[in-house]
């Protein structure tokens, strides 16, 4: 099963670095796709007036992206393929951001071309690839498996390829130029069969061109005759019929050509490595001169019109125009050209710089020179960087602890330079540029950052500052969370000035300071499990490539290995020999004796390789793992079946396992992440839906069943934790985070009741704060006492996730109800939602996603709406499921706390269900079964007999490529509206003010109205329902607005009649 983890990204002020290495525009001219040296793919919205806004960032590749290409007929499926330096290939859906397929092949591609011949090919088409291997590979666009190779007589690497489609002879060929400058042509159409039958396909023609470093080859489809070959020194035009050279143009000194494209017949655009481009007109006497051009070769070097008259019978280039640059800054960039002749589209020249800037030039349909014949400048149309988006939407790009740092420094805020999250303690530790280390509570910090109007939370966010470093904190390590050998109070931090400090995280005191004098500390790694089981040893990598071994117990540096010439790649402890084996990036190996600290051996070549290969088999440490996302996901994914082992702890050789599982109960994790080059730190909040659901339901059962909270779950927890206590006596002093131990259970739980009540009634916060403060002062630590952490965390986490999913401002009243009753608080700003498409691929929205869409709606208050169609989907969902839910009884009997919790749980289980359905559409039948079981379990809700129709609806959405977040949001919106509607009456009684200041009552009216319509047509196909919704909305909106006040008045009369009245009211108009 796929790991099911919705995520929310909390970006920082600085955008993650994105050095563009590949750029393309999709066929619909709505999305720009860029690949970076850091390995991420970025999707950018391109508006119809050529404005750019970043949309999503896709994680998954582990190396620099080398090329991008479309991977399907774009109208059918918006898929793009990316390839990297280390041979990874990924097919992405650029609409949803999901990874469709991925593979790792031993080939490094530098260019990919999608080829599909619908009437002669089966399957989804081919990716014709070339790169650092011989000849051309044919890769299946669907499976990414190698189908065949196009071979040639003298094989060599191919630099560039292009497919030549000639309408005249109805034949497709592949033209390629090798690194040595040999032009090769393969027949594609006629060799389809032999390729499918895996017969050898050799080139049809081969000709050595006098050009090295060929950058691009293009066929002119307008004349079906000219072939443009761009090499770094010059570009040339050949006659495709006999490959005779027609003209050559050399580049200016200091420039290198990088590519080109045919604009129109005899018109070319050529661009350079540093972002310049030139449009040439080929002045042509070809037609009149018959075949005489064949005699001509290579004479027209840099011919300009004046000289051109002398060489009338030749083809020569005339510079028409060139594209402008900003401040004459020329940076290495990759460029491309999109030649669209159809009306709504543009001819666009685009470039992506290493700095991450995208530049667009709108090239006029008929470029012309100025009147005096000198070339004309085409101005830049748009320029944009990721950072621009971060600056523009600065509320969304606020760092996770900017609140705290800001208040400390007065002006500006300290930038977080490294961070670590301790799941066991729910603590987030952030090291800053200025050397300070902040320790806060993870969930509280996330809530304070994301939610609105909880100055209460912000002001009281408990935190601690560790002062000790005087320069940037470069790395942090909490060794205990993976291994119990380490004391749970230990926290390690390394800094730019080569200092490593061992902290007591609870007291904030410095236990030991190591001065390494080896440059910045780049990484802190805990030693592998089996090495001296009871010893607490940590490895420390420095920027001078040295490795320091620190013994934490003894507070001693055992060894400082300083001879390495290249960055350290692998480290292994050999317990038998008591040596440290260090593998470097140049494949050399150093073996150090730990006792004496002497270099025992230095090996290179074969011996080194053998030693490194031997290391591979056993446990070793890897330096420089970039994004820990995939490991984290795997960890959470495995949590299901590892659970069982948690009860037989201590016996195995690796006691850490029991410790690990205790962490895994946590449904919420913060994952600090960093991109390669800059220190932009961002945090990913991971929500484990399944675990949350489990926790919530157990909590609900606990509240329901009896007043003593000793339900099965807490008992189990208590049991396991007492066992653990025996194991780690040291934790006694921090018993705060060891929940519900038998004796304490009663008191702890009573705390919880209070807190719950506080939470549900924010009006009466006063008492809560007092209580909180009291509790705070009663502890030695400044942390919030987290005795009931699991239970509270579960509800808070669930509520936070629901807050992040809800579109706010669609209906102000609903918003207020959410905040007032369910304690699902309004967001401070739209969130960057993220989704995991499989275990190692992740897409995260960037600040500024779809911000324009909300404006189009004309509803200014609306934010965090993932797309316009969510509202339609939501209505559709309501219509489809209306009959099944009838009246919910059982609510009346409960007191507030339970009911609200129940509602939260219900909402949560809904979106969790939707998530499951969409994630595993193939297993729909299983899902029905499991769902029926599941709904049987939660006996507090009327069993959903019609859940099958719900499933069908969701599956139908899935087919319509509704994004998973859209579906979740739509369902949540619908459910919130439905659940809260009965509450409106009481809400009005209790909060009359809220209704008066709420001028948006009409929203609800049209909502109800459309709902009524939908009901009428419930049997009609979903599409027609949608249409009706729209038409009725537009027709009656005006009238509804007039009635808004009356509706509100009527509402307050009686809840039963209200619905009826409103609808008849509307129908009356």
């Amino acid at each position, binding site marked *: 099963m796929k790991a099911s983890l919705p995520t929310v990204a909390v970006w920082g002020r600085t955008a993650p670095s994105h*050095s563009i290495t590949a750029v393309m525009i999709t066929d619909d001219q709505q999305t720009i796709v860029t690949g970076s*040296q850091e390995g991420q793919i970025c999707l950018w919205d391109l508006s119809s007036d050529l404005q750019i806004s970043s949309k999503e960032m896709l994680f998954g590749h582990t190396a620099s992206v080398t090329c991008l290409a479309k991977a399907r007929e774009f109208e059918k499926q918006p898929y793009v393929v990316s390839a990297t*330096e280390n041979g990874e290939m990924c097919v992405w859906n650029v609409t949803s951001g999901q990874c469709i397929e991925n593979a790792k092949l031993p080939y490094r591609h530098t260019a990919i071309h999608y080829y599909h011949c619908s009437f002669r090919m089966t399957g989804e088409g081919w990716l014709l690839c070339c790169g*650092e291997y*011989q000849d051309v590979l044919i890769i299946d666009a669907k499976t990414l498996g190698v189908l065949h190779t196009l071979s040639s007589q*003298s*094989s*060599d*690497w191919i630099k560039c390829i292009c497919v030549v489609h000639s309408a005249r002879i109805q034949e497709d060929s592949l033209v390629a130029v090798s*690194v*040595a400058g040999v032009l090769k042509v393969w027949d594609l159409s006629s060799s389809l069969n032999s390729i499918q039958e895996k017969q050898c396909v050799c080139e049809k023609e081969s000709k050595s061109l*006098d050009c*090295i*470093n060929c950058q691009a080859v293009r066929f002119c489809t307008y004349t079906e005759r000219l072939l443009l070959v761009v090499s*770094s020194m010059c570009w040339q035009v050949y006659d495709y019929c006999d490959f005779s050279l027609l003209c050559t143009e050399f580049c200016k000194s*200091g420039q*290198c050509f990088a590519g080109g494209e045919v604009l129109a017949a005899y018109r070319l655009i050529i661009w350079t*490595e540093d972002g310049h481009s030139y449009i040439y007109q080929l002045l042509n006497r070809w037609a009149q001169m018959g075949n005489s051009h064949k005699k001509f070769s290579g004479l027209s070097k840099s011919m300009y019109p004046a000289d051109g008259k002398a060489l009338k019978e030749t083809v020569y280039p005339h510079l028409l125009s060139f594209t402008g640059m900003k401040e004459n800054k020329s*940076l*290495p960039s990759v460029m491309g050209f999109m030649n669209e002749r159809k009306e709504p589209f543009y001819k666009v020249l685009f470039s992506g*710089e*290493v*700095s991450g*800037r995208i530049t667009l030039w709108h090239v006029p349909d008929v470029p012309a020179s100025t009147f005096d014949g000198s070339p004309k400048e085409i101005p830049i149309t748009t320029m944009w960087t990721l*950072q621009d988006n971060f600056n523009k939407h600065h509320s969304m790009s606020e760092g996770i602890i900017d609140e705290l740092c800001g208040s400390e420094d007065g002006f500006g805020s300290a930038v977080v330079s490294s961070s670590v999250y301790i799941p066991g303690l729910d603590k987030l530790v952030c090291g800053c540029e200025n050397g300070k280390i902040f320790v806060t509570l993870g969930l509280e910090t996330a809530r304070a950052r994301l939610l609105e109007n909880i100055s209460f939370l912000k002001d009281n966010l408990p935190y601690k500052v560790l002062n000790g470093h005087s*320069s*940037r904190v470069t790395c942090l390590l909490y060794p205990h969370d993976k291994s119990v050998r380490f004391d749970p109070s230990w926290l390690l931090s390394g800094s*730019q000035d080569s200092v490593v400090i061992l902290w007591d995280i609870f007291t904030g005191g410095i236990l030991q300071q190591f001065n390494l004098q080896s*440059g*910045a500390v780049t990484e802190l790694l805990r030693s592998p499990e089996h090495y001296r089981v009871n010893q607490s040893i940590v490895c420390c990598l420095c*920027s*001078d*490539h040295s490795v320091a071994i620190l013994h934490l117990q003894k507070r001693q540096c055992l060894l400082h290995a300083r001879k390495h*010439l*290249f*960055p350290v790649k692998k480290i292994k402890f050999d317990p038998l020999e008591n040596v440290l084996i260090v593998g470097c*990036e*140049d*494949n050399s190996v150093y073996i150090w004796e730990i006792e004496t600290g002497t270099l025992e051996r230095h090996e290179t*070549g*074969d011996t080194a*390789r053998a030693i490194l290969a031997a290391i591979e088999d056993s446990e070793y440490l890897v330096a420089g793992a970039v994004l820990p996302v995939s490991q984290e996901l795997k960890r959470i994914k495995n949590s299901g079946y590892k659970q069982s082992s948690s009860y037989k702890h201590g016996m195995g050789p690796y006691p850490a396992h029991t410790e690990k599982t205790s962490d895994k109960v946590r449904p919420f994790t913060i994952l600090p992440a960093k991109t390669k*080059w*800059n*220190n932009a730190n961002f945090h990913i909040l991971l929500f484990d839906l399944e675990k949350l659901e489990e926790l919530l339901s157990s909590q609900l059962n606990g509240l329901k069943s009896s007043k003593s909270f000793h339900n099965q779950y807490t008992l189990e927890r208590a049991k396991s934790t007492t066992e653990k206590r025996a194991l780690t006596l040291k934790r006694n002093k921090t018993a705060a985070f060891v929940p519900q131990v038998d004796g304490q259970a009663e008191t702890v739980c009573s705390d919880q009741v209070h807190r719950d009540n506080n939470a549900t009634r924010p009006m009466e916060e006063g008492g809560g704060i007092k209580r909180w403060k009291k509790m705070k002062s009663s502890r030695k630590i400044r942390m919030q006492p987290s005795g009931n952490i699991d239970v509270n965390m579960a509800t808070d986490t669930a509520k936070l996730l629901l807050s992040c999913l809800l579109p706010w401002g669609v209906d102000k009243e609903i918003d207020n109800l959410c905040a007032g009753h369910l304690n699902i608080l309004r967001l401070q700003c739209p969130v960057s939602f993220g989704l995991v498409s499989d275990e190692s691929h992740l897409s995260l929205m960037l600040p500024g996603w779809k911000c324009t869409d909300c404006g189009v709606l004309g509803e200014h208050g609306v934010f965090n709406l993932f797309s316009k169609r969510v509202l339609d989907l939501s209505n559709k969902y309501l219509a489809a499921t209306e009959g099944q839910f009838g009246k919910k009884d059982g609510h009346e009997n409960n007191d507030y706390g339970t009911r609200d919790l129940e509602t939260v749980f219900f909402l949560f289980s809904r979106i969790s269900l939707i998530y499951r359905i969409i994630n595993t559409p193939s297993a729909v039948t299983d899902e029905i079964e499991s769902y029926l079981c599941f709904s049987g379990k939660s006996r507090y809700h009327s069993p959903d007999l019609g859940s099958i129709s719900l499933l069908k609806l969701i599956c139908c959405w899935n087919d319509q490529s509704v994004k998973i977040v859209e579906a979740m949001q739509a369902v949540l919106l619908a459910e919130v509206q439905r659940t809260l509607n009965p509450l409106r009456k009481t809400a009005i009684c209790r909060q009359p003010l809220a209704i008066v200041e709420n001028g948006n009552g009409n929203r609800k009216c049209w909502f109800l109205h459309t709902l009524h319509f939908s009901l009428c047509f419930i049997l009609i196909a979903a599409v027609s329902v949608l249409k009706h919704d729209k038409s009725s909305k537009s027709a009656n909106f005006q009238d509804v607005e007039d009635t808004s006040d009356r509706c509100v008045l009527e509402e307050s009369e009686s809840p039963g009649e209200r619905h009826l009245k409103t609808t008849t009211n509307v129908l009356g108009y």
Partner: protein
Amino acid sequence: MTSSEEEFKWLLQEEVHAVLRQLQDILKEASHRFALPTSGSGGAVKQENFVLSTSGTDQVKGVMTLQGDALCQADVNLKMPRNNQLLHFAFREDKQWKLQQIQDARNHVNQAIYLLMNRDANYQFKTGLEVLKLMDAVMLQLSRARNRLTTPATLTLPEIASSGLTKMFTPVLPPDILVNFYINLNKLCLTVYQLHVMQPSTTKNFKPAGGSVLHNPGAMFEFGSQRYEVSHVHKVECVVPWLNDALVFFTVSLQLCQQLKDKISIFSSYWNYRPY
């Protein structure tokens, strides 16, 4: 402006270019060793003869002619251990065998040179990051070039049997003989495998061998519905001096690159604050 900022500026403006110049010179030397037909004027690439043999026995002897990345002539003399019968094979006149390792190494070096050429003395580095990225790209190409020479392909026996190499000889190779050429570090290597057909009735447990640079006697494989076992392995090699030079150049330039990276990294606190 502090003195260290001044120093960093000097590093970017002067020192980096000096190192890049040096790197280019070294790599061009390396590239010349691969006898590239770069200029176009050179025409035919020089041919070199190598005699591959082992000192102790003269079971296998090979005389190879290497022209750039291609083996254009090869004479293999093989003394059969059983009957001391002497077998002789040579490349067909019309055929030559591309040594892919040399070709790949050459192409990688060329890519590295191209990367460096793009940042000639006129180019102004604005950030340290830029230099680091360039160095990373160059080092990637160089380490690949080196790895191509130091790590021969691990092939399975059926792959060797089905490669085009077997069809290049005249007289045609007998079905119980396989040959393979590869580069290992600075050496050109020739391996000859003598096979014997495994009878279907044999009691031996058939276990196909995996991929390896050099297979040992006793390795088994299935090819064309026939099972074979390797009975004898002969390996002969000969040092190619210019490959040795090239490897040394690679190592030196890799170290230069890393040193430059280290120098830049010292100032990392400056390049962080200087966006483009």
